[in-house]
């Protein structure tokens, strides 16, 4: 799916937990997530903390969208 969206001319960032799969499906901008059943959350945290964690991931995704890349790039910290 990422690839088809990219092909249509839209920059796309893939937030996902299993980065190797994202790499094989051809995502170019990848942000590693927390866990498979809750990629953008952590039920063990309180609501405030959890939202802050999510915000950090989304901000990282936005940063990925504003970063020029020439090849598949995983945006770690």
């Amino acid at each position, binding site marked *: 799916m990422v690839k*088809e969206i*990219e092909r249509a001319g*839209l920059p796309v*960032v893939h937030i996902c937990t299993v980065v190797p799969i994202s790499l094989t499906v051809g995502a170019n901008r990848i942000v590693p997530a927390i866990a*498979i*059943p809750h*990629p953008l959350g952590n039920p063990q945290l309180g609501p405030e903390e959890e939202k802050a964690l999510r915000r950090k991931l989304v901000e990282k995704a936005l940063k990925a969208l504003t970063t020029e890349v020439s*090849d598949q790039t995983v945006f770690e910290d």
Partner: protein
Amino acid sequence: MGKIRIVHYLNQFFAGIGGEEKADFKPEVREGVVGPGMALQAGFKDEAEIVATVICGDSYFNENIEEAKAKVLELVKQYNPDLFIAGPAFNAGRYGVACGAITEAVQNELNIPALTAMYEENPGVDLYRKSIYIIPTKDSAVGMRDAVSKIVPFALKLAKGEKIGSPEEEGYIKRGIRVNYFADKRGSQRAVEMLIKKINGEKYETEYPMPDFDRVTPNPAIKDITKAKIALVTSGGIVPKGNPDHIESSSASKYGKYDIEGLMDLTADTFQTAHGGYDPVYANEDADRVLPVDVLRDLEKEGKIGKLHRYYYSTVGNGTSVANAKKFASEIAKELVADGVDAVILTST
């Protein structure tokens, strides 16, 4: 040679431990056969014996690949097997990745012959086909009998150290290895024969298939994200409560488009997941954990992004065929472009 000793690897589901709620199950070993191991054992008759079965939850493996691999290797090693078999994983993505990773590790680190089996579209195939033997199977456990009938003869051959022939002869998935051999006819003659077949519209087989690198060049970055209209797309199956479009929990045949105008937060009363391939508890409690609408609204309010697109798109990426996923995404992308969206955040579980 006495009986061939085999260690078998299964995920939590096939081992009968549980479904997605048990996907975080840590590696464990059981003596003898478990679940599909029985069908394999029946196929091996007296030639081989499954001495132990290692079990690991799919989410645990994929979220902790290095630790899980090390632990599984340790468990396999204890039994000093002659052969290691993982799966079959059919079209279960995380299971396929786990089977591929652990088969590769057993083969390379323990020097034990190893193989796995899965459906050709399983992401584990693309990741590991080059380094290990993967027997192609059907896309679901309905194909168990067929898978066993293919695995057994190949496994015995491999364990006995017999020469393994080409993928066409043996039936494993091509690894992209070229082997020199003496042909009866010289190259120019073979080339002309192929050309004549091609001109006549007949079938011919190339001797040098081109690798299929279907890569898309990254699009330029967004210059000013504070002016950008951003859309959310997910394969995590987030849908309005009740799943109005009846998106299937696996092998999805459709996607949904949902209006989130004015919505600040996804809640347990309004949204849920339709995905059947992960434990739905956390997403049902708070769908923002998969589709971060709440945070994007905050960022929109603060002027950190231009706008969150009025619609989000969702499907279930669980055993969904590549062809369907491609079709969904190209339709979605066309609409997004027409709606003036500048960039997309795609989330996957």
